[in-house]
């Protein structure tokens, strides 16, 4: 009994520590036994580098995904970035106008690519 009480006490202490340490990203509440609710942490500070064209990246890319989708890619050539931008529009339905493809690919190549 003593051992199980000790374990129980440690478990409670551990839970309190975990609660105290919880960041917004870690909060999880159970409203009833079957409801699971979480809050996602947003973009965790991942943000496009400032510079010419960053307004396009911020308005066109971030609607569907965080900047990390770009920053974690290998440093692509302009040809590859242009193809990626076209894919986002033609395959995934991103709201990118014809005359925005070039400037957006330029921005991505300059900041996340190999010119």
């Amino acid at each position: 009994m003593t051992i199980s009480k000790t374990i129980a006490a440690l478990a409670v202490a551990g839970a309190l520590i975990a609660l105290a340490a919880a960041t917004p990203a870690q909060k999880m509440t159970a409203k009833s036994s079957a409801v699971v609710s979480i809050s996602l942490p947003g973009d965790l500070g991942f943000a496009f580098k400032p510079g010419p064209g960053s307004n396009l990246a911020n308005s066109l890319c971030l609607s569907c995904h965080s900047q990390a989708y770009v920053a974690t890619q290998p440093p692509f050539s302009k040809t590859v970035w242009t193809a990626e931008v076209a894919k986002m529009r033609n395959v995934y339905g991103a709201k990118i106008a014809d005359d925005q493809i070039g400037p957006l690919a330029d921005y991505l190549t300059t900041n996340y690519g190999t010119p």
Partner: protein
Amino acid sequence: MLHSSRRDFLAAAAATAAALAPLGADAAKIVKGVFGNGDRPLVAFPQKRPLMVLTPRPPQLETPFEVFDDGVLTPNDAFFVRWHLAGIPTSVDGAKHRIKVGGLVDHPLLLSLADLKKYEAVEVVAVNQCSGNSRGFFTPRVAGGEWQNGAMGNARWTGARLQDILAKAGVQASAKQVQFHGLDGPVFPETPAFRKSLDIGMATSNPDIVVAYEMNGEPLPLLNGYPVRLIVPGWFATYWVKMLTDITVLDHVDDNFWMKTAYRIPATPNANVAPTDKGYATIPINRMPVRSFITNLKDGASLKAGNHVIRGIAFDGGSGIRAVQCSTDGGTSWTNTLLEADYGPYSFRRWHTFVTAQAGTQMTFACRAQAGDGSMQVATPIWNASGYQRSSIESYKVSVS
């Protein structure tokens, strides 16, 4: 001393983390990259321990590789996470959740979790591996989720057999495939919703395909698909549809984007082509090729001279692991290792061997597995444009002091 390399694995490098993204003091730890743009911050998402963030929105979280040394089952809070589309429900009521079984069936069903639990419950231990696991190691590099080797996990899944559900619904004779869909959706209606399909023969005859409501004896974490997820043992994770809502029997081969265009591999041996190849036929990605890893050594680590236990894991697409061999000389000579407990043909199989390290030497460890179907890992890495199903022999250079 093996453990010191594990400690080194989680390199705290606040400066690099700050350059990567201003995450704040509580998120300064990163796992250093092993390829370009590969540094990953360690952040705890809901119901998860700190995992390597590939992308936060939609969430793609990689399991730090040291976890695979801890045991044969990957804990739920360490299990990797990968979503395609940002429309992920953040609140799910398991009591209200329903799975609609429809299409070419005689008796359409609307199944609650309670209904699902009336079917015979089955358990299967199975590896869930992302099609693009290890994509970051492709040479030349390819676009996509730039994972190291931790976009995989092994869990004990409990649920109802898909074939039992389909038998109750009564599949009609003209059925060709069964399509699966979950609660997640796209931001824009123009984005193709994520739907995956299996051939009707496989869906109705493979008793190991499970509609699972438990993962390692607990409800699934929301980010792994609470309340129910399709489990397709031996096949890549793209088919393991999360938050399952729809099982639809089709009279045709599914031509939706996620089957017809995405997640396809070259119809060549081991899905291997040259970067200059064009015009080859493709097929939907399917069974996982055999793989193995050493779990208590890291490439580039140092090792104290003396005797060591080297441990690892191996798995394949469902024929089981026949043998795992280890080399200490970069693959010139190989020694059989000892296979540990068998959790079934879809599980990680742990193995270990004993090695003596001589002071002042460089050793190149490697491991290779042979599956029950006779297939064996090869030394030369494959290449394909999507970065799918890397499975070549892994090697680990260490300095002995």
